C-alpha cells in the first residue's frame, strides 16, 4: 500500500538573495507561517510544477513535510527547522528580523 500523503509546503531559495522561501497561494514568502499547506497529493504535484517553472525567482524547489498547527505550519524535521530559522551560532538570516 502506498504511504498516506502527509501535509507539505513548497520551499526553495530565492534566486537573488539565496533566502529560504515558501510558496503561498499567490507567490512566495520568507515566513513559514505564511506558507500554503498542501494536504492533497494531486494538488501538491500541480503546485510543484508551477513552482518549478518560476526559475526567474527561485532555485532548488522541493516539497517539505510540515505539521499544520494553529499558528501556521511547523517543520517536522530538524533540517527544515534550521532552514526556517537560520543558523544556531549567530542570530543571522531570518532571526535578524524576528
Amino acid at each position: 500500500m502506498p504511504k498516506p500523503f502527509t501535509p507539505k509546503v513548497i520551499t526553495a531559495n530565492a534566486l537573488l538573495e539565496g533566502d529560504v522561501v515558501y510558496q503561498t497561494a499567490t507567490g512566495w514568502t520568507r515566513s513559514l507561517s505564511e506558507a500554503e499547506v498542501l494536504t492533497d497529493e494531486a494538488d501538491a504535484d500541480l503546485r510543484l510544477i508551477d513552482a518549478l517553472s518560476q526559475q526567474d525567482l527561485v532555485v532548488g524547489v522541493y516539497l517539505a513535510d510540515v505539521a499544520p498547527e494553529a499558528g501556521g505550519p511547523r517543520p517536522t524535521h530538524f533540517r527544515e527547522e534550521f532552514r526556517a530559522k537560520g543558523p544556531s551560532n549567530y542570530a543571522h538570516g531570518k532571526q535578524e528580523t524576528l
Partner: protein
Amino acid sequence: MYSYTEFDDKFLAERNAQFRAQVERRIDGSLTEDEFKPLRLMNGLYLQLHAYMLRVAIPYGTLNSAQMDQLARIAEQWDKGYGHFTTRQNIQYNWPELRDVPDMLDALAEVNLHAIQTSGNTIRNVTADHFAGAAADEVADPRPVAELIRQWSTDHPEFQFLPRKFKVAVTGAAADRAVIKAHDIGLRIVERDGEQGFEVIVGGGLGRTPMIGKVLYDFVSADDLLPTLEAIVSVYNVLGRRDNKYKARIKITVHENGIEDIRARVDAQYALIRSQFTGVDQQVLSRIESDFAAPQFKTASLAAYESAYTNDPVFRAWADTNLAEHRAPGYAIVSISLKAHGATPGDATANQMRVMADLARRFGHDELRISHEQNVILPHVHRSDLPALHAALKEAKLATANIGLISDIIACPGMDYCALATARSIPIAQEIATRFDELKLEHDVGPLKIKISGCINACGHHHVGHIGILGLDRAGVENYQITLGGDGTENASIGERAGPGFSAEEIIPAIERLVLGYLDLRNDPSETFLQAYRRLGLAPFKAALYPETASKDQANAA
C-alpha cells in the same frame, strides 16, 4: 610570496568578466539554473541552506597583509562582517547575494586571489604545511612547488571534468602537518644523495570510505614531478569510476586496481608524455622560487621576551601553547587561535582579520598562513616582538592559549550552513570547548585533537581525530558517532568506531566521561591521549564511554 604576472592578471580578469556576464544572463532569464549551476560552481559559488556561499582559494594557505585586509573588506561590504576559514585553508563567505558576487571576485583579483576550482570535479586548491618556510624540521619550503602545481592545474584542459574532485597537499618536512596521507595525491619533499625530490603518495582520502594513501614512488626528481602528476591524473581520468559517485575518488581506483597496477599504468603514461615537458616548467619554478625567498631575519635582544615569560603567567601560558620552533635563531612561529572557548571554530570578524594583517605587517615580515586546523599563523615573528604582539592579540580576543588542546577543535560548518550536512557540528564544538574551559582541565589533558564532521563527507576530518565525532540523521534526530585513535600526521591512522551514537544532549557528557577516563588510564601526564589509546586499545575507552554496558558486562561475567 608569489605575485601575479601580466598573464595571470589577464586570465583572471577574463574569467571574472565571463562570470559577470553569466550572472547577468542568469538574472535576466537567458540561463536556466541547470545551465548556470556548473558555471557558478566553477567559480566557487555554492547555494547552501540559508544563502549562497562563496569559497575563496587561499593557495597553500599563504596570505600577505594586503590580501587579509581585502578579505576583511569583502566580509564587511558584501557579507555579514565575518569569514569562515576551512580545513582546506580556504575562506568561505556565508551570506553573499548573487548580484554582488562578480564585484567580490573583482575585489579578490585586486589582491591576486580568486575562487576558481574551489568546487567541481577538478584539481582543487593545493594545500601545504602551514609552517612552510619557517619550520625548523623542513627539508625545503613546499610553497614554490605548490604554486607550480596551482599554475599547472588551473584551467588544465584535460582535467576540468575528472570523475570526482581531486585534492593535492605538499609538505617539506618529515613531521606531516598537511595531512598528506589523506589526500588524492600527497607530496613530501625528501633528500636522496644530496638531491631534492618527492615522495609521491596516492589514494588517500576521508569521506564515506576513509583510506590512508599509499606510496606510489619513494623518490621522483624535481624535474619529473609535473610529468608524473600529469600521468597520475590522466590514468585516474580514464580509469576512475564515473558510474557511482561514491566510488569515483582515486582512493577507490587505487583500492580496486591495486597500487602495482596503478604504478604500471602511470609508468606507461609517463613514458608517453614525458617528452612534452621540455623544461619550461623548471624555468617557471625557478622564477617562483625567487618569489619565495626567505625574509631578512633580524637579530635583537631577547630580554623583553624573557622578562614577559618570567613575569606574566598569561603570556607564558600562551607562549608555551601557541609557539613553535622556527628555523632562524631568535624567531618563533605564532599560531593565532580562532577557537576562543564558545566561539565558532575558524570564524574571524573583519576587525580580527585587520588586526592580524596589521600584526603581520608590524611584526611578521608581512606573512600570514591559514592552517587546515582553522587557525591563523604568523610564520616569522622575532621573540623580542612577542610581548607587544600578544598584547594586541588579547585586545582583539585572539590570544586564546589552546593550540593542540581539546578546545582547538576542527569543525565543518555542518547543518547550520551546509546543504549536504546531516547534523550540526558548530554547537557541539562550542559546547565541548565551553565545558572543558569550565572544568579548567584542558592543560592537564594535554595534546588532544577533536575533529567534528556534520556528515559522512568528513570535511571536519573526524576519521583522523584522536577523538572523531560524526553527526548523522538517525530517524529524524541528530545523532553523533564517536571514533577513537585517528591520526592525521606521518603516522596516519583511521579512527575506530567506539559504539552506538549519542544524541545532541548526550554527546558532551560522553566526551567528558571519555576524557576523564583517559586521565585515569594514562601512565603519567606525559602520555598523551593518542599514546594511551595505542597502548591500551579501544576497550577501556569504550568502558568509559558506555558505563552502563560496562557494568552490565561485569554483572554477566560475575
